């Protein structure tokens, strides 16, 4: 529904964005795939011979890889579980009438705006530190042995930190979705004899299904790439105990300077992310038509 003139203008207007994103996507992607087929280490200059699938074989059979996959899944799954369940409960609470609702809301969403390096360091030093952390004082106060969170349960600790960062996001979105629920529906259900639990399970939860899906998918995209939190707390250790896929690829490429293997890992990460992305795009695409 437009003239050729405006259509031509539209093409012109959209092309910078398209070209830039196309370049941003294709050039590095192509280079990653290319590097992943070479023996290429920055510490060993010389020609970089083509080695076929060798890097992939090396990366995929490295014990660190299976550990990283496990850690990645545990991190994503753990944080999702905590934030979605916590987000629904918190959303329900914040949706109730109370005094100072606006202020509570502000308190709850605050962690989302804290940069990852700050939250990781604050938790690491001021809370989880076995000597000077608040948790250590608390344990002492209760007559318990201080617990060295990041040494003894590194992955769980990171899950805790990341959950603290993402709980506000889940809460905010689920609360928004709850507030869009038609109050008359709830009143009709009440007239039909549904108690609070039935109202939650038959009315509220189905209404939230879409928002929960969106939360899960968007968080997954970000959680697959958790990096700074690991870098500043554990450096992936002890051993590989808290190394996820992103960190492993970083370590291969920029710590061990093995560009070939790092690139192969990058390709693996892209494949994994794409599987999630397909689901997310379907969801959002559906919304686009509505």
């Amino acid at each position, binding site marked *: *529904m*437009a*003239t050729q003139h405006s259509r031509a203008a539209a093409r012109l207007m959209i092309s910078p964005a398209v070209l830039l994103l196309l370049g941003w996507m294709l050039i590095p992607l192509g280079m990653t795939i290319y590097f992943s087929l070479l023996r290429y280490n920055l510490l060993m200059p010389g020609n970089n011979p083509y080695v076929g699938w060798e890097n992939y074989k090396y990366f995929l059979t490295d014990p660190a890889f299976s550990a990283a996959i496990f850690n990645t899944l545990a991190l994503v799954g753990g944080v999702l579980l905590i934030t979605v369940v916590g987000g629904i409960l918190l959303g329900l609470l914040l949706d109730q009438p109370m005094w100072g609702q606006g202020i509570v809301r502000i308190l709850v969403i605050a962690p989302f705006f804290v940069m990852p390096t700050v939250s990781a360091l604050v938790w690491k030093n001021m809370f989880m530190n076995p000597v000077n952390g608040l948790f250590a004082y608390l344990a002492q106060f209760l007559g318990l042995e201080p617990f060295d969170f990041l040494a003894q349960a590194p992955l769980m600790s990171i899950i805790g930190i990341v959950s603290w960062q993402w709980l506000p996001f889940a809460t905010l979105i689920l609360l928004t979705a709850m507030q869009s629920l038609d109050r008359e529906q709830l009143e009709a259900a009440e007239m039909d004899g549904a108690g609070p639990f039935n109202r939650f399970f038959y009315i509220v939860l189905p209404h939230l299904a879409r928002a929960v899906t969106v939360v899960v998918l968007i968080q997954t995209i970000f959680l697959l790439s958790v990096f700074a939190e690991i870098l500043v707390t554990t450096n992936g250790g002890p051993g590989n105990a808290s190394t996820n896929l992103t960190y492993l690829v970083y370590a291969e490429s920029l710590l061990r300077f093995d560009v070939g293997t790092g690139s192969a890992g990058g390709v693996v990460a892209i494949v994994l992310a794409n599987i999630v992305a397909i689901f997310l795009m379907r969801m959002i695409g559906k919304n686009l038509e509505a």
Partner: protein
Amino acid sequence: MGRITLDKVTKSFGDIEVIPPLDLTIDEGEFVVFVGPSGCGKSTLLRLIAGLEDVSSGQIRIDRQDATHLPPAKRGLAMVFQSYALYPHMSVRKNIAFPLKMAGMDKAEQDKRVNYAAEVLNLSDYIDRKPGQLSGGQRQRVAIGRAIVREPAAFLFDEPLSNLDAALRVNMRLEISELHAKLKTTMVYVTHDQVEAMTMADKIVVLQAGRIEQVGSPLELYRAPRNRFVAGFIGSPKMNFITGAAAEAFGVHEIGVRPEHLQPSTESGMWKGTVGVGEHLGSDTFLHVHDTGLAETITVRASGEMALRHGDTIWLTPEADKIHKFDAAGLRVE
């Protein structure tokens, strides 16, 4: 100023031809109404004239100049949109002045014209308000004001009254007619409401599926519809169509009689039927008559106080010179 000619104009969206080749001349100073059911292409036709859509082929001339490929701004036309399309962030004054500002007119002249338009349209009291603070009728007048300040070659109206309530619609109809009488500028008006078409137009263009079914004055269309479609579309309530033996008695495939051209009687007449629902409007009563053997329902206009009840027997007689005859293809037979 203000003569618009369409010469074999067509429009296709992809493979779908929404307007097959169409010729039309709109004379200077005329009030032309495009009317037809929704999806008949009347709005598309208006947008082609406005330049908001490209024609697929053919030529549009405005004042004898080829305007086919001119952008909207260069055609010297002004348009009033269905949603009024006022700029919500600008005051009434700035809304009306916008086309003048775009034309680079000097400030004093802008003010003069805006004030004049506001006065003509009774907007002076609201001139510094934002559109959001105005009623539907006031917004409509602002939209018209924005159109008239430019002194365009012609005004284009795209269903401008469809968002107003019934009472206001009647008012605005009169105001627009008054405006036309005052300005004597060509107006092209699109509506799906045949009442608007009949009451306002100098010339009605009836469209169906992108084709012009008939062009003529309201009374021409009423008296001599060229085909069954126009006959059914113009006039309210709708014309009764009768086929079968009753039509063959007149030597044609189908006849049409308007409700107001049927004589009702409780005693005798050409056709006999049973009274169904009666709609009493006070001045008139429209009776829905069943069991006539002519059509499922025949609508007839009776005088306002005719005492007939549901289930009564009634006789109907058409006025002989008001019977419209159609052949099997739906074309008028004289």
